[in-house]
């Protein structure tokens, strides 16, 4: 069974006075297997942010359902949502979203503390993750003292420390220079190799080229997908670029 299944997802926004209806998602169907690394690509306004928000259970769909490990996340009650997200989902954002009044260490501890874990349980987890992400030296520093790449790795550590079922990343390389981006993508590949399921929304072909599978979303529908198979990152990059060109030209891939 797939880890994450999305069935007939539809989201309609109604303008304030009820007149115009905008279909952000029309009919989205896809699934993510356990241990898979999936990238979702699309232009601005294609509906990918709406999709991610629904997957993150920040927003609710108009119809359709999202199943995580067979459980319907779209019907979790509001009161349990925060807990649900804390336990099952990990988030990485474009602008890091670190708290500037916490040290790196405390930022990473935050979700565990919110979950009510004991301090003694938390220490070994932090050590493992910090080592994996190469941020052991900066644990005592504050966000304003470290670089953007280090900030994003801190955010990844914060997302992973709860051992989430799936890591949701929203344009994780968006605010990084190309070197830091490469570093971060390598990090993603590492944690993917260790068995972490990753779902990433991105503009960047380079970022997408690290994934196992790339979904293209256009006008609220999954339009196309590419499997890596045995391709290298560079070949994958080429293939994604080609697909995007056709996509932007407005053509139909099946022609």
């Amino acid at each position, binding site marked *: 069974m797939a880890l994450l299944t999305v069935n007939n997802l539809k989201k309609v926004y109604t303008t304030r006075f009820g007149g115009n209806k905008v279909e952000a998602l029309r009919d989205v169907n896809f699934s993510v297997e356990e241990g898979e690394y999936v990238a979702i690509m699309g232009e601005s306004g294609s509906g990918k942010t709406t999709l991610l928000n629904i997957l993150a259970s920040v927003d609710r769909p108009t119809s359709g359902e999202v199943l995580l490990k067979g459980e319907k996340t779209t019907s979790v009650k509001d*009161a349990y*949502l*925060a*807990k649900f*997200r*804390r336990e099952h989902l990990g*988030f990485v*954002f474009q602008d890091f*979203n*670190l*708290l*500037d*009044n*916490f*040290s790196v260490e*405390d930022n990473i*501890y*935050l*979700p565990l*503390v*919110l*979950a*009510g874990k*004991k*301090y003694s349980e*938390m220490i070994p987890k932090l050590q493992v993750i910090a080592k994996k992400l190469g941020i052991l030296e900066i644990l005592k520093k*504050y*966000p*304003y*003292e470290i670089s953007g790449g280090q900030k994003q790795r801190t955010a990844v550590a*914060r997302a992973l420390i709860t051992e989430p079922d799936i890591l949701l990343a929203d344009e994780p390389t968006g605010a990084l220079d190309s070197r830091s981006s490469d570093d971060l993508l390598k990090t993603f590949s590492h944690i993917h190799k260790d068995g972490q399921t990753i779902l990433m929304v991105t503009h960047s072909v380079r970022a997408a080229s690290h994934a196992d599978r790339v979904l293209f979303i256009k006008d609220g529908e999954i339009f196309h997908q590419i499997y890596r198979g045995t391709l290298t990152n560079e070949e994958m990059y080429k293939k994604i670029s080609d697909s995007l060109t056709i996509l932007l030209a407005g053509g139909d891939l099946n022609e």
Partner: protein
Amino acid sequence: MNNKLYVKLAGNNLKKNKSAFIPFGLSCAMMIAMFYMLSSITGQVTDDMFYGARTMKTVLEIGVRICGIFSVAVIFYTNNFLMKRRTRELGLYSILGMEKKHIRKVLFWESFIVGGFSILAGMAAGILFSKLMFLVLLNLLNLETSFRFLISLAAIKVTVLLFIGIFLIIILYNQIRLFRLKPIDLLNESKAGEKEPKANWFLAAIGFICLGIGYYIAISTKNPIRAINHFFFAVLLVIAGTYSLFISGSIAVLKLLKRQKNFYYHKNHFITVSFMTYRMKQNAAGLANICILSTAVLVVLSSTVSLYSGLENVMRTRYPKDVTAGVLYMPNEDEEENIYDMSLLEKVIDEQCRKYGVEKENPESRYSLSLLIGFQDGSLFPADSQNLSSMKIVEGWVLDDFKRVTDENYTLKQGEVLWFDNFSGGEKQMDLLEIGSFSARVTNKNELSGDIEDYFTEQDYGIDEILLVVPDRETLAELSDAYTEFVYGDNTETVHPVEYSYSFDLNGDLEQKMNFCNSLREVLNNAGIPHVSIVEDIFTTRQEILGIYGSLFFLGIFMGTLFLLTTVLIIYYKQISEGYEDRSRFLILQKVGMSKGEVKKLIHSQILSIFFLPILLAVIHVAFAFPILKRILFMLDLSNVPLFIGCTIGTILIFFLVYGVVYGVTARVYYKLVNE
């Protein structure tokens, strides 16, 4: 662009920032109303309104000035806060293509609208309520409410001019501020991360020590007159301690908590401790100000309320009987012994009573002599200002008077005295009392106790007293002469004479009683009674003291309200300015997995601690100041401790109530800001 557009823009800005401007306008209006009320009432009080009106007018005039100065300070503070917050908004205007002169016009109209509204609303409220306040004041003074109260044109003029002036200065100030800003500053928001505040352990320790010493002095000082310098020192120490505690102590405590890993990494403490650390860095001085201001309000209000409501108590301590007439007994100065026939005094007074149709009740009379003598290691020395601490008050009474008061049966021969005192020490060992040429054997030594103790209230001020009972008035006169010689050397004039006092209560119409008292001295003199000394009555003094205490009470309430308003305003603005900063943090927390309910709880616990920390410390300050305040009130003859305790607790409760309401409003505004 024409003026209409600027006015419209200014109006829009006010609407958009209404959570900041409405409290500003309302508090300005309130201050204007209060200033007008106070100055128009002061103008209505005329010297001949009642006995003591002159003192009251002086007190009120001082009050008007304080009120004015305070309003200026508060309006400036608030305006400064508003301007600081709007830097970014103004920057946006300049990016959108407005020049500074355009922005200047918008700012002008904003201040104009707010100022105009506050002055109009304030004056309207002031005129509406000033009559009511005047009636309240008259009621406090127990005066008939038949005085006409007019709308005072002079007060309107002063108030309007003063506040127009204040707003003009504010407009000018804002223009200068704008002029000095560079466009890039207008837009740049300080996004740079803040350093984590460091705990200054040294300063924190000093704060604790200051507070400790200040408290100790306040508790241990038995005699506030003697230690008035100590008292001020204690006040300064407590103020210094408050500042350093808020500035360093708070952060030090939070750091200590942070080190307790098991405590710190707990759901309920983790975020609060960390947020508070930063909070304290920005707000410590403001919170300390609030703490000191609140302490002042509580002290002023509770003591003026107690003084006013304890007035009768004060009067009775000061005047045990309604009327007292005194005659000096100086047989040395006069050749004829028989002129000291004290029954004549009584006869004249009875006649005076008949004349005015009032009734004399509970008459009491006695001879007394009051001396100040230094005692040290069993020897006596003349009083001087150097050794105040070894001074004791020696009171001389005659045996007959003593027996009448105590109902005890003592006998005394010539050359013998009885000794009663209120202290313990070596002087008690004295068997032979020698004061200059006067010497007598002490036959009985006892504590001052029972009914007689009521006549000796000086011990409340921490002064030692001795009561000497001698056989007759002639002996008392001898003691007086011996004392004069002892202190001043060979001097024939009597400096500390024996006094015979006759006191009684009066029954009847108040006006008749006043007339009785006013003519009493003349009547006594005309009747040929020699050396009439004091003639005093409770009635005129009561009116005078009522004038002072009543107006102090009135002012206390006024000032208390003004201080409270300020405190509340400061704290409200602090909170909402933080709301803007905290918004992003709370958003992140929600993204990381905190529910809305948890965020709400967190916000409440934070605002709660910011709000009530200073007030709690203020209450502790008041509790420690209580003993010394009690003694100061004792000096003002207010000895009703339960009343004072009640007034203090009542004031604190009312303070908390008002504060709680503001807390509720602030928390709501803050929550809305954060969750927008």
